[in-house]
């Protein structure tokens, strides 16, 4: 990634640089968006679009309303949801094929297939929470900012999603 530095000027003087945010969030943001969209190409476009929008709107960042990370993920979420809506209007979602085929008798592969199936069994909102927590590493407070609910509500929803995932993973196949 690029090494140029740029301050993130906000109304409340953001302390870190955009470069630091970009470097720390790039991979996480992509993982979150890809989990939401189930489409690598679209995820790449939306990830880039989110950073572009963040750069354009960097003056609107308000540290009083959450961390830069939450702000950036909020932008990415809006872009991803817009993309989902666009796709729902134009064509049915074509799920990408799994990365690798599961060969019978391979425990790791079986385990991964189970997890993948468990994730697929979650609804979109639960899958989003899992992505924000497991892939992006956001705190519950940051998740609350991103999805626009209170921190307790975010924690409760996250717990529900994790429990559901855990149960699905432990179910005998």
């Amino acid at each position, binding site marked *: 990634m690029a090494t140029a530095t740029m301050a993130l000027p906000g109304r409340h003087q953001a302390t870190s640089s955009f470069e630091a945010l970009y470097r720390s969030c790039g991979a996480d943001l992509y*993982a979150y968006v890809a989990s939401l969209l189930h489409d690598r190409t679209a995820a790449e476009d939306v990830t880039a679009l989110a*950073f*572009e929008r963040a750069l354009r709107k960097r003056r609107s960042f308000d540290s009083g309303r959450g961390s830069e990370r939450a702000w950036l993920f909020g932008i990415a979420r809006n872009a991803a*949801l817009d993309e989902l809506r666009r796709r*729902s209007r134009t064509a049915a979602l074509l799920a990408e094929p799994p990365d690798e085929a599961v060969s019978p008798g391979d425990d790791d592969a079986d385990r991964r297939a189970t997890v993948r199936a468990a994730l697929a069994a979650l609804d*979109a909102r639960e899958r989003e929470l899992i992505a924000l*927590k497991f892939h992006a590493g956001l705190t519950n407070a940051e998740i609350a900012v991103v999805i626009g*609910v209170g921190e307790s509500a975010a924690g409760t929803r996250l*717990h529900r999603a994790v429990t559901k995932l855990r149960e699905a993973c432990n179910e005998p196949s």
Partner: protein
Amino acid sequence: MSRRETTLDPAVAAELAELERALAGEPSPFTALVADVHAERPVMTPAFAAKLDARVDEARAAPPRRSWLAWSPLGGLAAALVVAVVVVSNRDGGSSPSTESSSPAGSHASSSTEDSSAKAAAPQSAAGAATSQAAPAFGSPAARKVERSTSLALSTARADVQGVADDVIATSQRFGGIVESSQIATSDAEASAVFALRIPTKRLDEAIAALSKLAHVASLSQGSTDITGSFVSASSRLGDARAERRGLLKALGRATTAQEIDALKLRLRDNRSQIAALKGELNGLRRRADLARVDVTVSGNGHKGATGGGSWTPRDAAHDALRVLEVAAGVVLVGLAGGIPIALIGALGALAARSARRRRREGALDPV
């Protein structure tokens, strides 16, 4: 966050704490789950990472976009300034100078115009209208005799009254006029000057325009009276008197007796008096038509007009500054009166639109 916060269930909080430990790499019941889910984490390709770098670099080079809302205060200020400048530049309107053209009852001419500038154009148009509408029932337009009168009130700084008065006299003379009477009064509190001028009617409009430039025009009124009837009547009577004189002279030539001669001489004497009186009447009428009466009042308790003479004093500056503030305050008040409801409606609309957009976005996550 505007939503109502509720306390997290302790059991839920404890499990979430365990999850946090697992995510931090510490031993936890969630360690396996975290590892399994992490294994499913989408990873960007090196090609996309490079492409993302390029797109972000490109976006970084672009200047940050400033919201139109950020410019709205400046726009409002600029608009207020423009209005203030326009109003102040026409601040003669604030002192309500009036320009009117009127004619006494019975006259055919009557026109009225309200023009705050009250400069040369107004008198000309008013006078022109008066003249054109003052057509008598008899006689050709060229032969019409119209008496015109103007009353002009000027206001200026007290100290400038004498100077303006001198200018009034000089202007009157420049246009071939005469000063019938003048009166200048000054005191510590105020000063004033009153003039009765006679200006050749043909140059009246020019003269009024020139006089109007001497100081701030507080008011201007013009009137016209058609005196053609009186003039024709007097001319006719003069003709009759002259015809009678000729007849009397012929009769006198034919008179033979002293009594007859005395009687004719007596009638001739009366006739001479009548002719002289009619000539005087005609001359008076001719003079009224040829020389317009212009009453000029200069008052020294007003501020200087924009075209008035003299220098721009600190007092004038303070007055102008106050006027600008008055206008600006007025603009702000009007803007607030009209703008607040519009802004409220706009804000409500924006909130509703934002809420609707958010609902539509969230709907993308709902099951189809």
